């Protein structure tokens, strides 16, 4: 097939004179689908009255389509690799389009294929997927409530009290400001940590300590779907508030509302250059990514012409303020009718006369509300959600079912999440996911039972003035940075992908193992970690073998196989029946805990 889509009726574009320059900035001058679409190419500013005549810049070719033979997502590309063969086969083996009325019914019907050496435990599986790490207390709670009641409660996060750590998040001084307040103070308050750091710390604190775990998981999913990273020009102020005011606000609401809010927030509008886009010189960045990343996805049926039309339509979305960064309003969203392109628009089945600049924002919202409800957008959303929660390669059948739930519920997210947990495929896929680097570290912190209090020997930093809580989270942030996959800090418009084959690296794992060693030896006293001995029940079991069993139960929620136990005991060079009090064994406890948290049972989820 031809690599570039060149419709017949445009193949004989005549050689153009002055107008050909219009093509250089990609202006819409093409009839899309036969409908005449206005062109503003005559207003191009490239040449003044005395400018040189653009005598011969050559013919304009037809607008370039996306390559329909190419992959349509990062996940798809990675999962088609040969090294993903086992993952694909496992996913195929658990494929099912059955969605039942209750999660527990689906769990009962599913035939989970658990790899050898892994526990077959639906409660552990649920904890591994719906939370950021299975702790003994969490497992006990799900067990006592039952799977259905626990999920119901998680889907009503307001019914779950804030934990001590969530209350402590208010110690981060910038996190509760409004965007305008933050814009006004950020450059005068020199002692404050950056808002970008604070937002990361608040995010990781919630992942570790919030009891609203499923909500935080969905927030994490939406963060990667509409990614506004913390570090871009002017983004260090607006991006954290994008996370709070758009993502968190709508994570359990309607995805359409989230996206409509997103295009009206300074964070996204600045990041994807929409604020620089002018009707005479449209900037395509947000228009393109809204189609490719936020709605229908690459391969979702749009053309370059659609992108250009959308770029024209979206002009007017901007921010208030001049160039002075201390201007209090600089970072807040504003619609600027004067900068809104007017004229008929046609994009993926959406057409509008778009005649009034004053009503431009309403047309833009109508357009977003249109594309976010297209079948391709439903599929793209469903596939990403299932990839996040079910397996690296969810079945098309499940994706189709979830896409239908998305459309049937007018893009409401909670029903899709509930349907996903009620699918047989979900329950048939234990340990099919690998923790991403950041999730791995968070899960380790949770499994170790870190507390948001200081440990003895903690010395506060001299400056900037920072609470111990913030200081502890800052330390963790440094480790995340070294591991390379920092939540809410993905630097490109696509969020962090979530398939194992994208993260097959050894150094982030070894960095996490080092951190285990560090915290178990008291290296991070701003937070309270247990010692390795504290991880054992009191009084300690009498033999080394019994201690290893207890440690495995504590950290990876399973009794080790005899081979696993022998490997763990080999670290201390002792036998299973050796007394636990032996110096060699006690000295090796940290390393045994490290090996358990490094094990496949901890890495996979």
């Amino acid at each position: 097939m031809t690599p570039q889509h060149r419709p017949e009726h445009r193949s004989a574009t005549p050689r153009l004179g002055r107008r050909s320059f219009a093509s250089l900035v990609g202006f819409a001058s093409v009839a899309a689908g036969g409908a005449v679409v206005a062109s503003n190419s005559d207003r191009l500013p490239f040449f003044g009255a005395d400018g040189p005549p653009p005598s011969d810049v050559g013919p304009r070719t037809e607008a370039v389509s996306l390559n329909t033979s190419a992959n349509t997502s990062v996940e798809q590309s990675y999962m088609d690799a040969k090294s993903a063969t086992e993952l694909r086969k496992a996913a195929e083996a658990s494929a099912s389009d059955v969605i039942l009325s209750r999660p527990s019914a689906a769990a009962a019907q599913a035939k989970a294929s658990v790899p050898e050496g892994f526990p077959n435990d639906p409660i552990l599986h649920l904890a591994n997927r719906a939370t950021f790490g299975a702790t003994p207390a969490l497992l006990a709670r799900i067990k006592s409530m039952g799977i259905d009641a626990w999920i119901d409660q998680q889907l009503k996060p307001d019914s779950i009290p804030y934990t001590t750590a969530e209350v402590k998040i208010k110690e981060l001084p910038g996190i509760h400001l409004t965007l305008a307040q933050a814009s006004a103070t950020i450059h005068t308050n020199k002692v404050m940590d950056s808002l970008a750091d604070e937002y990361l710390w608040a995010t990781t604190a919630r992942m570790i300590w919030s009891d609203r775990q499923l909500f935080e998981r969905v927030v994490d999913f939406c963060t990667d779907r509409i990614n506004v990273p913390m570090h871009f020009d002017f983004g260090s102020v607006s991006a954290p508030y994008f996370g709070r005011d758009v993502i968190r606000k709508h994570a359990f609401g309607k995805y359409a509302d989230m996206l409509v809010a997103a295009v009206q927030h300074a964070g996204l509008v600045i990041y994807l250059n929409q604020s620089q886009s002018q009707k005479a010189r449209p900037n395509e960045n947000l228009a393109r990514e809204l189609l490719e990343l936020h709605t229908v996805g690459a391969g979702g049926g749009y053309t370059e012409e659609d992108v250009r039309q959308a770029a024209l339509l979206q002009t007017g979305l901007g921010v208030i303020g001049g160039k002075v960064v201390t201007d209090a309003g600089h970072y807040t969203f504003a619609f600027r009718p004067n900068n809104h392109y007017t004229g008929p628009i046609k994009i993926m089945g959406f057409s509008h006369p778009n005649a009034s600049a004053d009503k431009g924002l309403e047309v833009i919202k109508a357009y977003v509300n249109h594309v976010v409800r297209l079948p391709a957008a439903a599929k793209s959303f469903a596939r990403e959600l299932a990839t996040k929660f079910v397996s690296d390669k969810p079945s098309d059948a499940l994706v189709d079912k979830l896409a239908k739930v998305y459309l049937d519920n007018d893009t409401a997210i909670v029903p899709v999440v509930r349907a996903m947990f009620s699918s047989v495929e979900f329950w048939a896929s234990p340990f099919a996911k690998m923790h991403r680097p950041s999730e791995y570290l968070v899960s380790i912190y949770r499994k170790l039972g870190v507390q948001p209090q200081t440990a003895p020997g903690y010395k506060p930093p001299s400056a900037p003035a920072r609470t111990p809580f913030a200081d502890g989270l800052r330390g963790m942030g440094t480790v995340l940075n070294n591991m390379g996959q920092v939540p809410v800090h993905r630097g490109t418009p696509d969020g962090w992908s979530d398939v194992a084959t994208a993260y097959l690296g050894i150094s982030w794992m070894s960095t996490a193992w080092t951190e285990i060693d560090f915290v178990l030896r008291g290296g991070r006293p701003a937070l309270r970690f247990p010692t390795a001995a504290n991880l054992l029940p009191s009084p300690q079991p009498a033999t080394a073998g019994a201690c290893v069993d207890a440690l495995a139960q504590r950290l990876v929620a399973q009794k080790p196989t005899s081979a696993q136990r022998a490997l763990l005991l080999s670290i201390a060079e002792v036998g299973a029946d050796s007394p636990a009090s032996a110096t060699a064994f006690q000295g090796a406890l940290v390393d045994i805990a490290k090996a358990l948290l490094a094990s496949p049972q901890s890495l996979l989820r």
Partner: protein
Amino acid sequence: MMGSNVYPNGRGQEKLPDPAEVALRAAYEATASNNAAIRDDFLRLSDVEEAQQEGRGVTRRAVVGGAVGAAAALATAEFAVTKAAYAAAPTGSGKTLINIFLVGACDGLGLLAPGDDAILKAVRPNLLLDRTAIPLERGFVLNSAFTPLKPLIDAGRVAFVPAVSDNKLPRSHFQSIDICSLGGLPSETKGTGWLDRLLDNLGPTTTFQAVNIGAQTSRTLVGNHVPLSIASLKALGVRGDARYHERTLKAIEGLFHGLAHPAGDVIANGMQAIRTAEKLTSTAYKPANGAVYTGAVGTGLQSVAQLLRGDVPVEVINMAFGGYDTHAAEGVNSGGHLYNLLSDLAKGLAAFFADLGTKAQNTTVIVTTEFGRRVAQNNDGTDHGHGGVAIVVSGRKLAGKVIGGWKGLKELDNGDVPATNNMFGLYGKVAQGVFGLTDSAVKKVFPNNPAVSFSIFG
């Protein structure tokens, strides 16, 4: 096969001094028969699949060409012996190719531009290279951010290629990066990255044969082989009580043994890499010849220099650096955004080649990006385009300072620089020049792409 290689059952071999080894052995034996069955099944399926894909009879390429999945997990159980000492392993070609990818679509015309060009003056008045630009040859001027590389440029060790792309590449970042990484469309590349297919032609060496530097494993290296993926050499190491260190690593290896998940391969390869890296980083690294590493590119390349100067036989490196999606506030001149990125790149490369000294002779870097940007500015930035600029830097003499075809800016592709010089033809030609590959070997790596007609090396 693997069982007898690793832990021979012959008499006299049974007494292993280290309890960790004993435990490992027990783990292997416990799973050996199961694994053998899985492996046989896997290899059979793999052969059949491959044969079906290629429309031919069953071959053993799946076995010899670099085992995958379960097969690799088992084959790499040999780590305990064959990969224990990289110096004793085959040293490979002794050549190194470093693939640097500029993520976000670097504006080629902000990097290298025809000098004094009337079209550029007309359509990108805010993004013209100023008078500090370095005149090269054929009328091109180079962004002065490359000044740190001037000595290498003057010595003929740096070549710039304009108008590089492929007509398969669309204007989507993701799709173009993906196609660049695969070296073609998915249907043409069978799910393997181009550097992964290149490894098929280099033969096995050590854990360090292919190294990805970055948080995510580049798609270029995903396929048949198991690359070593690290954030930096320094990050590769495990802190702990020295008394238990080695036995802890062994225990972790054992816990992953036989795992039917690609993470098993990562551990099997990675543990030996950790041991090597711990040796290399046990003393502070001292760059040679006054080299000073700064910035993101320099930091990444320092890890590579450390490996190469430590005589680790690295053949393929992949690195990626972002920030090039300059829709606004592009800044091509001193102090500007693009200038700063290119300056970071130039400083990193200059430090690296200085540091390598005579080892530079065997080292070649190719720098590419997913596409160039539109010829006309949108205001103070540029939108997505087509033909971009590639850079080759080598310790060897190159064919020129500006190589490849250039037809000027009068004939454009949809307002963009056309794909005069084929991206994949260029990749293939550079790889061929570095490793001395035959034409048919290059054809295996890039089955559907014409070789470029111009020379790379002088």
